[in-house]
């Protein structure tokens, strides 16, 4: 591509560059906005809107700082203000961020799921919802108890569901380029090698948690025979799932011409 010669613009050139930066900022903010809304299509609408607004503001701040710098004005004060605002925002959202982080880790490391009966501190009930901030328990008295997710990282959690030890739940994210039916079929074939350590009455169960145009969040549930096999089965199942994902992500080679085939 041949770039236009902007030299004749002389002193106006920085303003032209600033205008270009702002135009790119505008386009980027729109594209990222669209992406966030589509990725968060199954989240609460106000959370999706807030996230996209926050990201927009961030992109615009960076764009404006760069544009202002381009026209030769010092941005030190502006950067300081933005930095302080950022720190203030993080402090203000500390608890929310802690809960969201705790949800990520408890998903992976704390063995309970929707439908299980759990005891956390003085609260006991059936898990009916796990959202990014809290886990909702329905008590025997029909009361709704909302437990901040960070409590699950700092408290002893007792899963009182009968034979809860049998279940190994593995969260999986599958990108949209992978055919889910093929993924399920391959995972089942691969996991059949572990069947000596799994309860033969319960084949692997793959259930959907959330989905957006980019990924499908699934939970693979396995039922082990012996409590002592939990760790080894989890590790091996994770490895096998990763291998299947890797295999299916790799573009298929056309046997005849060696060209890559698009994922189905």
């Amino acid at each position: 591509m041949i770039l236009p010669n902007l030299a004749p613009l002389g002193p106006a050139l920085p303003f032209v560059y600033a205008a270009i930066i702002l135009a790119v900022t505008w386009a980027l903010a729109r594209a990222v906005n669209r992406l966030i809304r589509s990725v968060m299509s199954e989240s609460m609408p106000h959370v999706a809107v807030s996230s996209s607004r926050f990201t927009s503001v961030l992109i615009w701040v960076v764009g404006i700082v760069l544009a202002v710098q381009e026209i030769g004005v010092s941005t030190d004060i502006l950067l300081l203000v933005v930095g302080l605002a950022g720190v203030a925002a993080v402090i203000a959202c500390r608890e929310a961020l802690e809960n969201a982080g705790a949800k990520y880790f408890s998903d992976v490391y704390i063995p309970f799921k929707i439908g299980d009966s759990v005891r956390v501190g003085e609260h006991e009930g059936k898990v009916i919802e796990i959202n990014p901030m809290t886990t909702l328990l329905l008590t025997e008295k029909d009361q709704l108890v909302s437990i901040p997710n960070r409590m699950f990282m700092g408290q002893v959690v007792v899963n009182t569901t009968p034979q809860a030890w049998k279940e190994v739940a593995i969260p999986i994210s599958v990108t949209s380029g992978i055919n889910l039916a093929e993924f399920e079929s391959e995972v089942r074939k691969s996991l059949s090698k572990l069947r000596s350590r799994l309860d033969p009455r319960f084949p692997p169960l793959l259930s959907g948690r959330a989905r957006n145009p980019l990924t499908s969040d699934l939970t693979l549930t396995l039922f082990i025979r012996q409590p002592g096999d939990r760790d080894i089965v989890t590790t091996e199942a994770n490895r096998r799932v990763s291998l299947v994902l890797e295999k299916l992500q790799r573009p298929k080679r056309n046997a005849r011409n060696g060209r890559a085939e698009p994922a189905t």
Partner: protein
Amino acid sequence: MSEAWRVCINTQTPLLQYLDPGLARTVGRDDRPLDLGSYHEGTDYRVSPGGVTRMVLPLLRRLGEMGAIRDPHWVSLNAKGPKSVRYDGLVLHNVEMSRLRMAGYGTIKEAVWRVAHGTRTSKGPDELLWTADFSEFAYYNRATAELLRRLDEANDFDVYYVHDFQQLPVGSMLSRAKPKIFRWHIPFEKGMIPPDWRSTFEEYLRHYDMVIMSTDRYLRALRDFGYKGPAKRMFPYVDPKDYTFPSPKEAQAVCAKWGIHPKDQVILVVGRMDPMKGQDVAIQAFATLASSFPRAKLVLVGNGSFSSSRAGLALTKGEAWRAGLEQLIKDLGLEGRVVLTGHVTQPELDALYERCLFTVLPSHREGFGLVVVESWLHRRATVVSDRAGITELLHPGKNGLVFDPTKVSSLAQDLHVLLDDSGELRHRLAEEGYRTAGPCLLDAAAGEEVAMIKEVVGP
């Protein structure tokens, strides 16, 4: 009803089978469903035979006429069809699967079917639920669930109506908040599900908002099995408008192509070529009295199911069974006395019903037995195996005769009674049967279906 529901049907057997191989590769303009308006039924495609399609198509038509549903979609397995087609106000979608996967899927489907029909000692979970074949069975169900999900995103359905045991896992794989109805079409007897399969079945069943069984006995067995969710009994049904009633002369003219003479006493057996359908029992019973009734002829109608057809899963069961029956006919010296018609068209089937003296349903196990209802519609007496679900509506000697399919002599005795009859008994059984058919006809069933869907979807 305030607004018409948007319904999505899911069956394994497709409504249409495509006879023209070129049709499978044809796509509609702009990837829209291919309109079958310019193609010809009978040469380019045909409606699949079998109870499920025979029941569901008239239901959708009727609910459409009643204004209860609009723009229904229908998803089924069909590797040899176009991606989607528009037919008779419906949009039909085909789930594709490679031949190799189809074979694995077919193996599991057949195993479950055999267990339900009590013909084989159940395999343990190790031999079934952990096999590569089960992975293909899961593949098919997941592919179906994914297609149903995508269609819902585009069409915002009100309810999914999933038919038959092959589709059972679909409910658990379909993570949509829409109500899901599951209709079980094959037998469900007490103790049928092997204890080791129980948890898997329970897991699949619990994802449905309503489970429909064909008889009260099956519903009780489902409860005994431990299922506590919503469930109902609804008899299968047919639409009388789908049948024609040719005059005796017209019927004879059609039947002449199979060598049926005007003076022949025709006994009719309608059912696909499958050991479960017990055609061998009918032939053996017929053999015991063939010499006493020299004008009697046994006519067996039907070929393979979708599963055993070349357009379907291409399982060879149907052909093998037919060959076995031909050998049996030869061994018993019944050539010329037993006719195997293979697949017949609906007008031909109607002619055969009208031409016969009575019908026989000799199945070793039968989910329901809509051919009995068809016999009644044609005002023909019927002799029914006591292993068929429809016996729940039968009062032996009043609206039909009932026999034990494990005893050839039991059927032979009933055949003798009806062949020897002056016509009075056959007439009485047929007329009473005609009156019994009421709950198995679309008029009654459509209202029941609407009430059930309303219960599931909400007012």
